[in-house]
């Protein structure tokens, strides 16, 4: 494989701790899962089981895809949503409804102050 794309990852030590997220939602998603874990709503091993399953599913559905299409945080999101559903924290249907609500907002209006249009 020639696409490990490691160039740029050999940053000096003081910069090695950089966040490796490619989009803000990935950063936030990680923070949500970690915070839930730290507060004891589920343990790491349980989350890991869901994550492994989500990754396996993704890999089965994407055989032959170039590695750069790998969607780790998509899998992470699937795993977290399924775990929250199974633990009755957030039912899948409730999550879908909320996604639709958020999607219905006017573009650029994802903040919480009032607008007159």
């Amino acid at each position: 494989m020639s696409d490990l794309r490691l160039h740029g990852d050999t940053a000096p030590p003081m910069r090695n701790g950089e966040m490796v997220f490619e989009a803000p939602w990935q950063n936030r998603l990680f923070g949500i899962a970690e915070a839930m874990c730290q507060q004891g709503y589920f343990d790491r091993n349980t989350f890991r089981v869901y994550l492994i399953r989500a990754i396996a599913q993704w890999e089965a559905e994407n055989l032959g895809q170039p590695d750069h299409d790998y969607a780790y945080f998509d899998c992470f999101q699937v795993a977290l949503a399924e775990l929250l559903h199974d633990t009755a924290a957030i039912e899948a249907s409730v999550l879908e409804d909320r996604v639709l609500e958020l999607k219905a907002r006017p573009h650029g209006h994802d903040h919480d102050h009032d607008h007159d249009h």
Partner: protein
Amino acid sequence: MSDQPSPQSLRTEAIETLLIEKKLLTSADVDTVLTTFSEQVGPMNGAKLVARAWVDEGFKARLLEDATTIIAEYGFEGGQVDKLIVKACSESVHHVVVCTLCSCYPWAVLGLPPRWYKDPGYRSRIVREPRKVLTEMGLTLPETTDIKVWDSSAEIRYMVLPLRPAGTEALDETALAELITRDAMIGVAAIETPS
């Protein structure tokens, strides 16, 4: 360019807002986690251990014997390390770390994992053909050097103690720590001799 959030972004926001409404989480909880990982945890924790081991044989022996206790003594907790095992490279044996199933990683000492660590290609190929993968990643080892691959799990995380490069005899522990990279502590790079 559209400013419509991506489906993943919407779904993440939906999860967070629902958890907040159910009083299972606050935005501040999430902010605290992210601040901790970005500012307080990082590969410098691991680098401190490596540098100390390079200058203190007794410490090195303890680190190889019981790294879990050592990181507790250093206060490097709060990440995903239940049991940490450190593997020391030598001229005859090189160690490299992977998680073949997902992305288990010693976050308390190395911070957040690099993107390629989660890559299916790395996770599968480093086990099958480690020498070739390491060469592709820029680390060419002598044919006489054995390569051992350590598969991390939820219970056990591994970190590599790289070889101290030649020409660093005059450097103190702090200066040595600055040479040490995250990739070297995963085992996919060597520490360069400082110019």
